[in-house]
């Protein structure tokens, strides 16, 4: 039998060259071995790969001889029986052998067409040089990744937050879970508002509208306005061209002036909100009288340099219906509280008062006189002082005792003149004069002892008139040299009655009601540093220090003073809460450090932690 063998090879320029040969045998070998009938120079082919047999010129038997199989119409087999009339395609490694029946010849012969299908090596593959030598294909293209990243950004940081906003719009309070718009935060909220961090809409209620006061006041419903807005604007005066431009631009973008958040800035970091800067006050209050001519508030800029003298509220008329007035403080300022009390006498280091204090062991063994703390006690919050209390603070020296019965000392009642009068009458009525010693005993009484001027006579006469002595005693106690008169102003009774009256005493706990003074941070100072009590001979003299005394340590913000105190150190912006301390960040570390440095001592718990 004869096989017709056609080898097709392709030239570099793509032309096909067909070489035809005939093999006149009924069994031919296929393999890489050069001696094979069908020589396939292919490393994927075994040297003796297969044997092909054909006995009738039509039916072909192919048998693998090397253990490696071959592909027959796409399936890997080791044996194949082929009817050349039907045709078949065999594959050995990178070569294809097409089996067909050559009907043009007589008799028909089996034809084998051998084509190399695979390239000899991978490197021989035709490729686009520009692509092969670049990163294309190894990394997503620039255009693709630009689109992917951009859309990712827009989805995560624009679409999702807006969706969150729309979804929770109108809802009173969002659940405390992640919401996409929290990625829009410009910084952590202050500790007071930290719980709102995930609920942007608790403040930012309307899109493209800056936070309004309504949002703040929904919680802070007790915040009072500082002053009517018209007066505030007048106090600030006409803005300069630059400020006016900023205001106009702000208004154009839905950002009005005078909102809470102008001063109370948020998203400035964790921890307490920052203290309000001095500038927010002085923008209006510095030179305000020129812009707001009818104001009664003095111009105030920096505390150290331009702050009006203190104007304490003092009593001008003492008594049951006292009258008060704010006056500008000076060394002669009087506070007519209704008391007579010379501070200088009580604070002397020597003399009768000092001697008595030492006898009563009030000086802790020191050879001095009284000090302030003997009479003045701080209030429970230690911010200021309790009013002086006669029974507690004076009576250890200024005793109102009248007698001792069975070890119990009876005293006149302080603050109740009618009771004093009554008690004295009762005393003189119920108690006889002290019986002279020589009236007792068993000695024989002799005539003459009852004569006028003798003991018996004196004693029994005294006993007889005893009750009427009360009038004298009452008069004495309320008059010069008496126990009440020393400290109080007394009104004598009219004719026919015994209605002694004492001018009521009103002690002011606080004189500066528009500013806040706290004694606690000043604990390490001597009282006398600020209060000139040792030189004061009158209880009417107001002993609170003038502003120049404060300025020894205190100056305004950034003034370089030992203690830099902005307006907010003493003044409250929202006047509704004037009775309490002005708001201040919980941990004012800077201030604490400075105070410590001027006292040169360790101040523990000075500010209540």
């Amino acid at each position, binding site marked *: 039998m004869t096989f017709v063998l056609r080898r097709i090879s392709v030239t570099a320029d793509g032309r096909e060259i067909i070489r035809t040969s005939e093999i006149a045998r009924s069994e031919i070998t296929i393999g*890489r071995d*050069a001696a094979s009938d069908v020589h396939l*120079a292919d*490393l*994927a082919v*075994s*040297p003796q790969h297969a044997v092909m047999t054909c006995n009738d010129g039509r039916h072909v038997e192919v048998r693998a001889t090397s253990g*490696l199989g071959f592909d027959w119409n796409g399936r890997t087999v080791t044996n194949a029986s082929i009817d050349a009339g039907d045709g078949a395609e065999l594959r050995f490694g990178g070569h294809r052998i097409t089996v067909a029946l050559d009907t043009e010849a007589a008799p028909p012969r089996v034809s084998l067409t051998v084509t190399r299908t695979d390239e*000899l*090596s*991978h*490197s*021989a593959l035709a*490729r686009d*040089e520009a692509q092969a*030598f*670049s*990163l294309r294909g*190894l*990394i*997503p293209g*620039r255009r693709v*990744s*630009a*689109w*992917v*990243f*951009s*859309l*990712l*950004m*827009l989805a995560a*940081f*624009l679409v999702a*937050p*807006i969706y969150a906003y729309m979804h929770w719009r109108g809802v009173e309070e969002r659940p405390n879970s992640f919401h996409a*718009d929290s*990625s*829009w*935060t*410009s*910084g*952590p909220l202050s500790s007071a508002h930290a719980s709102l961090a995930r609920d*942007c809409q608790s403040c*930012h209620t309307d*899109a*493209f509208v*800056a*936070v309004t006061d309504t949002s703040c006041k929904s919680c802070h419903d007790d915040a009072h306005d500082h002053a009517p807005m018209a007066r505030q604007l007048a106090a600030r005066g006409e803005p300069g061209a630059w400020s006016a431009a*900023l205001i106009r*631009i702000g208004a154009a*973008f839905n*950002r009005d002036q005078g909102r809470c958040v102008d001063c109370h*800035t948020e998203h*400035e*970091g964790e921890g307490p909100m*920052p203290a309000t*800067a001095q*500038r*927010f006050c002085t923008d209006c209050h510095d030179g305000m009288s020129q812009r707001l001519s009818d104001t009664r508030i003095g111009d105030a800029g920096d505390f150290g340099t331009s702050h009006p003298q203190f104007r304490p509220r003092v009593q001008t008329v003492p008594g049951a219906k006292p009258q008060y007035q704010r006056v500008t403080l000076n060394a002669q300022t009087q506070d007519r509280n209704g008391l007579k009390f010379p501070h200088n006498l009580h604070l002397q280091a020597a003399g009768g008062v000092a001697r008595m204090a030492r006898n009563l062991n009030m000086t802790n063994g020191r050879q001095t006189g009284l000090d302030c703390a003997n009479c003045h006690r701080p209030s429970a919050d230690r911010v200021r002082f309790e009013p002086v209390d006669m029974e507690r603070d004076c009576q250890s020296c200024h005793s109102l005792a009248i007698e001792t019965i069975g070890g119990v000392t009876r005293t006149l009642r302080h603050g109740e003149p009618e009771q004093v009068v009554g008690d004295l009458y009762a005393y003189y009525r119920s108690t006889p004069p002290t019986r002279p010693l020589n009236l007792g005993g068993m000695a024989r009484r002799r005539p003459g002892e009852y004569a006028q001027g003798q003991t018996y006579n004196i004693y029994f006469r005294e006993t007889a008139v005893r009750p009427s002595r009360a009038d004298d005693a009452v008069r004495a106690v309320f008059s010069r040299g008496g126990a009440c008169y020393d400290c109080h102003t007394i009104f004598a009774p009219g004719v026919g009655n015994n209605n002694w009256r004492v001018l009521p005493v009103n002690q002011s706990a606080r004189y500066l009601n528009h500013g806040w003074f706290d004694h606690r941070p000043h604990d390490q100072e001597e009282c006398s540093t600020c209060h000139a009590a040792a030189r004061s001979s009158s209880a009417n003299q107001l002993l609170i220090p003038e502003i120049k005394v404060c300025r020894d340590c205190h100056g305004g913000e950034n003034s370089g003073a030992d203690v830099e105190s902005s307006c907010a150190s003493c003044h409250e912006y929202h006047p509704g809460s004037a009775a309490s301390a002005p708001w201040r960040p919980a941990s004012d570390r800077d201030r604490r450090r400075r105070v410590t440095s001027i006292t040169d001592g360790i101040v523990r718990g000075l500010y209540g932690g």
Partner: protein
Amino acid sequence: MARLLRRKTAAQSGRERSTLHSSFLSHAGFLWMKVALVLSLLAITSYLLVDVTPRHNGGSWYGYTLGTIGALLILWLTLLGLRKRAMTSGAWSLKAWTSAHVYLGLSLTVIGTLHSGLQLGWNVHTLAWVLMMLVIASGIWGIAVYSILPSALSNNRDERTQAQMLDDIRSIDRQLHEAAQPLAPADAAIVRETLDDDPFAGSLLARLTGRYPRCATAAALLKIRQQTGHQPDTGGDPLEKVDGLLSRKVAALGRLRRHLKIKALLEIWLYIHVPMTFALIAALSAHIISVFFYW
């Protein structure tokens, strides 16, 4: 690379000769470097002088001003992508534009950072800042490799073109194929592995580092060496010939891969610079819309 090639073409054709000797970095006596420096110093000085209470942030009038400048600058810098497709000469030449792109882009680090008021956090605003810095950093990388690597590239090429490098390998492959014909199936399989190996295969990481630990050619050489190593080269053993050819292929592949590595280092920055620019513009849009949305 493309730009360098274009310059070379221009030099050969004699056009733009007067400007060719100076790079875009030193264009017009470092004019744009001076402009960018002045801009940055101006920003820093005003940042220190302008009193923003309670502290600097993007939401003050000063912050908005810097932000607007920064955003416009970013958009203008992005326009280089369009501008570079139109080559012109003169004061507004592409080179001048590129010079301005580089220096103004660098000054953006100052403007963008001051705009933030140094307040960074986990939010869209800082994301935009990070993307901006990433784009600028990749740009700096690009300039750095363009000034350092081309000489390494040409040293490695040894006056051969890319096509020639590939042809070297193809030629070795053909010879390997020929030399391996007498080999037993097992040895032939070893040679086939290297022939079937794609010289351009390898991950991005392999391209950038030039390390190909699973290189079939190196493995094939190792296996053949195990057989040839201990026997004398008599000259007739086809394995010896294959051994020699494999060694040559390893060398040729090494040169090709070094070439690919340097090219990858030269190219990679644009794959960050360009997509990150568009990511930045998207994040910037989100940033700007967000501050007005919730403000």
